[in-house]
């Protein structure tokens, strides 16, 4: 994670951060390769990597089914991809020389906005004008609070993840400067790395679960 303008480049009048894009592509490749290796030669009796992958998928699927209901299976690939991408992204920055794609608001806000836009569009698609009505319940004045809530959703999603991951990476870079030598750094360094691994997993899970429940709120079939 090196903050530098050298990574910026311009295309179609927009500026892009080359480092974030490179890291994202690497993470995407890792997620894809891991998934393909895990699901290649799948057997009815699972072994090794297939077990782990199945556990992640069935675990998330259960969560999704429980909160969204029968439409859940439609969004399961999206939410499972979200989880896997965020998990590997959060851990990616812990590898020396790499940076997490999720240490920038571009990625986090992008994903959060994608989720929020998706849930409004799908809510309107599934429920029609009835969907808009719930903004004015229990009485019209609530629309203000409801709108603030809707704006808060992507912002909290994005900033929670950004803060956690950015802080984790920042401290990894700062720790060597705070401590007198490499020996003194070993214990706090390893501890912080371990904690970052934990935080990365938790944040990926939190982001995915919040997205799931936001989606559930707007697209869940009320008759269920």
């Amino acid at each position, binding site marked *: 994670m090196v*903050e530098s303008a050298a990574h910026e480049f311009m295309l179609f009048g927009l500026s892009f951060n080359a480092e974030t894009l490179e890291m994202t592509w690497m993470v995407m490749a890792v997620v894809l390769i891991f998934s393909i290796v895990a699901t290649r030669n799948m057997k009815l009796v699972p072994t090794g990597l297939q077990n782990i992958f199945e556990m992640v998928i069935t675990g998330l699927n259960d969560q999704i089914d429980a909160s969204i209901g029968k439409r859940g299976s439609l969004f399961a690939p999206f939410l499972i991809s979200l989880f896997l991408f965020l998990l590997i992204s959060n851990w990616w920055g812990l590898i020396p020389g790499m940076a997490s794609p999720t240490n920038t608001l571009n990625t986090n806000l992008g994903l959060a906005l994608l989720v929020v836009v998706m849930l409004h569009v799908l809510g309107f698609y599934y429920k029609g004008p009835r969907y808009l009505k719930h903004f004015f319940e229990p009485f019209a004045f609530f629309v203000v609070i409801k709108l603030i809530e809707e704006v808060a959703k992507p912002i909290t999603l994005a900033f929670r993840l950004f803060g956690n991951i950015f802080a984790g990476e920042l401290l990894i870079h700062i720790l060597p400067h705070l401590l007198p030598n490499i020996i003194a750094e070993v214990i706090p360094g390893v501890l912080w790395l371990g904690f970052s691994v934990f935080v990365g997993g938790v944040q990926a899970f939190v982001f995915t679960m919040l997205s799931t429940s936001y989606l559930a709120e707007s697209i869940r079939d009320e008759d269920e």
Partner: protein
Amino acid sequence: MINIDGTLLAQLVNFIVLVILLKKFAYKPIMKMLHDRQAKIANSIESAENDEKKAQQVLGEYQKQLADARVSAQSIVDKAMKRAQEEHDASIAQTKQEIEQMRKNAKEDIARDRERAAMQLKGEVVSLSMAAASKIIAVNIDESTNKKLVGDFIEKLDKDKLGGLSC
């Protein structure tokens, strides 16, 4: 790190591409495999239940056959015992009959022998008497008169004495 620029749009595209690829290469195969496994387990359970039902049925049939076999074995034994008893009775009856027959034959033999002995005795007695009489009386009677005389005497003797003897 907190400046928002075109990277956001690029990340959106990246993520959507990732979702599509993951869905194609990982999610679909794994869901298919999970469904296959579910179907296989359901099939296994169903076939196990069927097998158990069949086994119960076979066991029931077997027990019924066993009971039938026991009943028919009992009836065979009963029949055999009855027949043996009949044969036993028949053989005893036959033996009794044979014994009876043998006794009858023996009696007849004895009676015949006795008769024959009596005839022989009678003949000898006649000739002996003749010889004795001719010697004693030494009278010259003609042969036929003489024989008739002695025969009458013996006949009389036969009727009075010999017939009364028990042999």
